[in-house]
Each structure stands twice: as structure tokens, then as C-alpha cells.
């Protein structure tokens, strides 16, 4: 047993703990080795307990190894709502709807790229706007934006000629969340999104050039296009920009205004939720799907620009450079899925049923599906695949990153961005950032060790590691 901040945690499996249920809610399970568990901040446990007390939950509330405090639900939370009698919580999906990761291969090796890395990073910094106030290359009318967010990546490829049709099958839900409805999106969201298409944004969003450092599972790696050590890959982390943030803001406000109709008690207003079959919930899910599609389109448009930059620097076509999409996976989303409910006597343990899975800062991890886990810009990232165990234990979910251990404000006090930039350069990582402060916020020491996170989710059986990548160039907002 581990006692943390007054919470009693019993070890119930490999890298799996259950919080003593003295709070009248669903079971609360944490997938982490003890060394990560003890690094989690107190708010993680308080916020997780608040989530576990939401009405309509089916099975346990799950906290991933990379969890850290957020608002409402911790980053790294998964829970399932009964598809008939449950609730939907926009705050527990998060503001950056379908913030996610994508991984692109190349057939280049580090030795071929080494002398061109600064040129490439500078070009990418121009082609993929990052930070506050920079506009993307993709200009669309409102009518086109409507089609993009309702039809997703296939419309971008077929109507705008941006992206590869072959990419579509390598995107979660083929780049289109069904049920998106433009009329469920406010004018403010549309206005914010219009100029932000094909932009990276800020915060922890990045575009990273990486080299394969280690191949852990050779067969799986080969299948996914990761062939040899020192091969160059590109990783992108970004989301639905102001569009998604506004959708979340709008529906939190609507849900809160009508909260008294739902007769529920909340420990945190950020977790405000509405019954799944209410009009408010239906409209939110339609708006959320539109924002999710905005994010898929955003990442595909960014990929188009990345391919252009590589073509220009290396004088070969992106096809010749084998710049194939390995996968694009979402982090913040609510989705109707059918799941075996992890054993929980209080809440329909063992049943298979349709549920609305909320993943906030967590990745879907279905058997064989690629899972991309991004670390800090100083350390590295992993490619994994989903597993059957994730289906049994965690509603087909796994971790999403390395997870912060320090606030952004504190990280900025500990290092100046320029100093960090110099240090990273000496380590062979070339960085372009829209702001020194933004760079300092993302220093490696502000995050947990990515390998510890992967060890935890691998021990728990939630996903299997395939390859490990080290950064050689990074662009961040």
C-alpha cells in the first residue's frame, strides 16, 4: 500500500493501483509504477476523485502514468459514461479538442540531414507558423471551413488538393469524426479558427525532427515504416486551436447555465456535464466533432507544409523521400465505443456495453493501433502499439506524453529560454521558438522521464513499445 497526500493506494496489478474508495464514487485506478506515482502532484488525486464522483459513470475512472493536474480532470484521465443514462462533460474532454500527435517517416538518415538541419528548421519555421498572431497558408471561406469541419481530411485532400489520400487511412477515424455539425459551432469559434488553420499554436505544441535511437520491436517497427536506427522521422503535436477552445468555452457556459435542470452536484464547475440525450449534450458532441475534424485537418495541412520544406531542402519529392504518415492519434476527445467494462463490482463489472469514453490527455490504444507518445523536447519520444490488455483494463486507452512535474511559471523562473536554446544546441538539437519564455516553459526538467512513463504503461500492458526517437530539431510556439 502507498499513502500519498492522505490517499490510500493499493497495488492491484503490475503498475496498477486503486485508490481506497472512501468518497462514494466509481473506482479510481492509476496505471503507474510507484516511482511515477509519487511524483504526481496532490491536485491529480483531488481532481481524479472529483471525476470519480460524476454521475453516470460505468466502470472505473482511470489515471495514466503521465498524469498531472489540470482543470477539472487531471491531464491523463479516462472514464466511460453510460451511453443511455450517462453525461457528457466538455471540461473533461478539455479545451483543445483533438489535440493530438502525428508521426511521419522519411527515408533519410541523420548523416544526410545533419548539415542541413538549421536550413530545414528555419524553412519549417516559415512554412508552419507557430506562436501568437501568425497566420497559416490555408485561406478558406466560411463555406469551405464548414465542409472541412464536417467532412474532415478527405475534403481537404479531394477539394483543396492538400495532403495525400493515402494518409487518410492512417488517421484515427480516418480523419473524420461523424456527426459534426457546423450549426453547433458559434460565430466566435469560426472567427478564431479561420486564420489559425495550418498553424502550430503555442504552449506545449511542437513540430520535431527526430532520429530513430532504438528499435525495440523490429517486426512491428518495420510494419510501421521504421526501418533502421538513425532514420529521420517527423513528429507533430497540435490541436484545434482557437476553434476548439471556443467550442469548449461556449458549451461550458451553456451547460453551467442549465445545470439546475440536471439536478447534479459537482465538486468542480469545470466538470459541468449534461445528460447524453439532452439537446445541450447533442449539440456539444456535434460541435466537439467539428472541432476534432478541424484538428485533423490542421495536422494534415501542416504535414503538407512539412513535405514541401523537405522537398525544397533535399531536392527530392516527398514521395521519393517516403514521407508517409505512420499515424495520427487524438488526445482530447469523447467517443461512443463498445467496451468490456473493467472489473468493478459497483458499476456493471465485466459487461460489454456501449459507452461514451472521455479521454483527456490520453490516447486511444486499440490492439495493433499505433500510439505516439511525445516526450519533452530535450529527451525523446516513443512509438508504441495498442494492446488487448488496454481494452480489458482501460477502455482501450493509454498515456499520451511524459507529463509535467513543474508549473510553466516555475520553469520560466528556473531557466531563461536563450540559455536553454544554447544548451540544446550543444546537445545537437536545433530549436526555433516563437518566444524565449515559451521555450523555457517546455524545458526537459519540467517533465517526467518519458522512459519511465513507457515502462509503466508497458508493464501494465496498455501498449507495447516499438521504437524510441531522439530530437535533432524542434519548432515550438
Amino acid at each position, binding site marked *: 500500500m502507498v499513502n500519498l497526500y492522505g490517499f490510500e493506494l493499493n497495488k492491484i496489478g503490475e503498475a496498477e493501483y486503486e485508490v481506497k474508495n472512501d468518497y462514494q464514487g466509481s473506482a479510481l485506478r492509476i496505471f503507474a509504477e510507484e516511482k511515477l506515482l509519487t511524483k504526481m502532484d496532490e491536485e491529480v488525486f483531488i481532481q481524479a476523485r472529483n471525476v470519480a464522483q460524476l454521475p453516470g459513470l460505468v466502470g472505473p475512472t482511470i489515471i495514466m502514468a503521465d498524469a498531472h493536474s*489540470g482543470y477539472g480532470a487531471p491531464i491523463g484521465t479516462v472514464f466511460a459514461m453510460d451511453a443511455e443514462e450517462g453525461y457528457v462533460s466538455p471540461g473533461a474532454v478539455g479545451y483543445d479538442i483533438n489535440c493530438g500527435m502525428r508521426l511521419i517517416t522519411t527515408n533519410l538518415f541523420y548523416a544526410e540531414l545533419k548539415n542541413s538541419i538549421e536550413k530545414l528548421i528555419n524553412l519549417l519555421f516559415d512554412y508552419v507558423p507557430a506562436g*501568437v498572431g501568425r497566420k497559416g497558408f490555408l485561406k478558406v471561406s466560411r463555406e469551405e471551413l464548414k465542409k472541412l469541419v464536417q467532412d474532415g481530411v478527405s475534403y481537404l485532400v479531394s477539394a483543396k488538393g492538400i495532403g495525400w489520400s493515402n494518409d487518410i487511412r492512417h488517421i484515427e477515424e480516418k480523419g473524420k469524426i461523424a456527426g459534426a455539425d457546423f450549426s453547433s459551432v458559434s460565430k466566435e469559434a469560426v472567427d478564431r479558427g479561420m*486564420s489559425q488553420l495550418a498553424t502550430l499554436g503555442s504552449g506545449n505544441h511542437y513540430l520535431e525532427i527526430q532520429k530513430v535511437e532504438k528499435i525495440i520491436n523490429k517486426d512491428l517497427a518495420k510494419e510501421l515504416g521504421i526501418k533502421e536506427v538513425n532514420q529521420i522521422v517527423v513528429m507533430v503535436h497540435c490541436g484545434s486551436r482557437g476553434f476548439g477552445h471556443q467550442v469548449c468555452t461556449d458549451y461550458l457556459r451553456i451547460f*453551467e447555465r442549465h445545470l439546475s435542470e440536471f439536478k447534479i452536484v459537482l465538486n468542480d464547475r469545470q466538470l*459541468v456535464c449534461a445528460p447524453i440525450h439532452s439537446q445541450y449534450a447533442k449539440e456539444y458532441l456535434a460541435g466537439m466533432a467539428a472541432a476534432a475534424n478541424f484538428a485533423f485537418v490542421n495536422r494534415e495541412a501542416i504535414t503538407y507544409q512539412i513535405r514541401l520544406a523537405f522537398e525544397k531542402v533535399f531536392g527530392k519529392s516527398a514521395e521519393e523521400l517516403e514521407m508517409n504518415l505512420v499515424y495520427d492519434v487524438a488526445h482530447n476527445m469523447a467517443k461512443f465505443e463498445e467496451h468490456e467494462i473493467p472489473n468493478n463490482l459497483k458499476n456493471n463489472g465485466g459487461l460489454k456495453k456501449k459507452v461514451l469514453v472521455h479521454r483527456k490527455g490520453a490516447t486511444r490504444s486499440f490492439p495493433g493501433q499505433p500510439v505516439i507518445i511525445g516526450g519533452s523536447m530535450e529527451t525523446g519520444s516513443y512509438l508504441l502499439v495498442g494492446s488487448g490488455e488496454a481494452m480489458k483494463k482501460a477502455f482501450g486507452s493509454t498515456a499520451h506524453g511524459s507529463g*509535467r512535474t513543474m508549473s510553466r511559471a*516555475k520553469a520560466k523562473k528556473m531557466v531563461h529560454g536563450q540559455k536553454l536554446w544554447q544548451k540544446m544546441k550543444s546537445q545537437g538539437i536545433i530549436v526555433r521558438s516563437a518566444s524565449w519564455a515559451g521555450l523555457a516553459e517546455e524545458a526537459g526538467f519540467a517533465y517526467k522521464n518519458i522512459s519511465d512513463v513507457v515502462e509503466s504503461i508497458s508493464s501494465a500492458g496498455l501498449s507495447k513499445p516499438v521504437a524510441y526517437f531522439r530530437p535533432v530539431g524542434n519548432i515550438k510556439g
Partner: protein
Amino acid sequence: MVQQKWKIIDNQNLADIKVEVYGKNEEDLFGNILGVFTDIVTEVDKVKEEKEIAIKITGKNLSELISNFINKLIYIKDTSLTLFKKGKFRLTFIEDGYSLYSVLLGQKISRNLPIKTDIKALTLHKFKVERIGKKYKATLVFDI
């Protein structure tokens, strides 16, 4: 003694930013909210008074009014790419709550304005507005 306008709480909310904003009265509170908003995104002292925008917002109560005000600042930042140094505020009571008329002075985001971070949303997490004697305190957590 100069009254503190705001305080950034840097040991909480790892991924976000939590602030306490103070005001001698309601109008002063709005001025300081504007100040901390701009100072999180850039350095408020470096913002020039080149552009004037008048906005009018309403809210059923002071909390809602503050929330609507911040959401408006986010919207203007993202769509007109404008940040504000200061403003003049006039708060009035209306039949179903409050109305705030403000004239904000600032500038377009440009290369000479150092950008620190982006504010993407005001969360409801720990969001609180308190009246302490004649003064006001707002606790805000921004998604950045």
C-alpha cells in the same frame, strides 16, 4: 504603499496559470484583469497606445461579467491580433445584472512586442470573485 494589482501563483496548476487579481472597486478590478491578461501574453509596459477599441458586455452577475470580458479579450487577440495596455471602464446595473462599457487602448501584435505565452481560455476551475470589505479579488485559472 502601492497596492498589489495581481499575483501569479506559480506552484499550482502545472499546465495552466493561476492568478489572483485585486481591485479597489469593480472598475479597478477590470483594469487589473486587463493588465494581467496582457502581461501574461506579453510585457504590458511595452504595449503602445496606438489603437482604441470600445466594447460593451453584459453579465447576470460580476463573475459572469468577468468571464465575458476575458472571453472578449481572447476573441480580440485571436481575430484582430490586438493586445491592450489599459482601459477606461464604466460599470452600470441593468435590469438583469451588470453592463460594462470599456474603451481599451493598445496595439496590434507585432514583431517588436515580445510574446511570452498565449491565453487560450478562462477555465471555470477555481474561478472565484470575492468582495473583501470594499475591495475585490478574482481568482482565475487560464488555459495557456
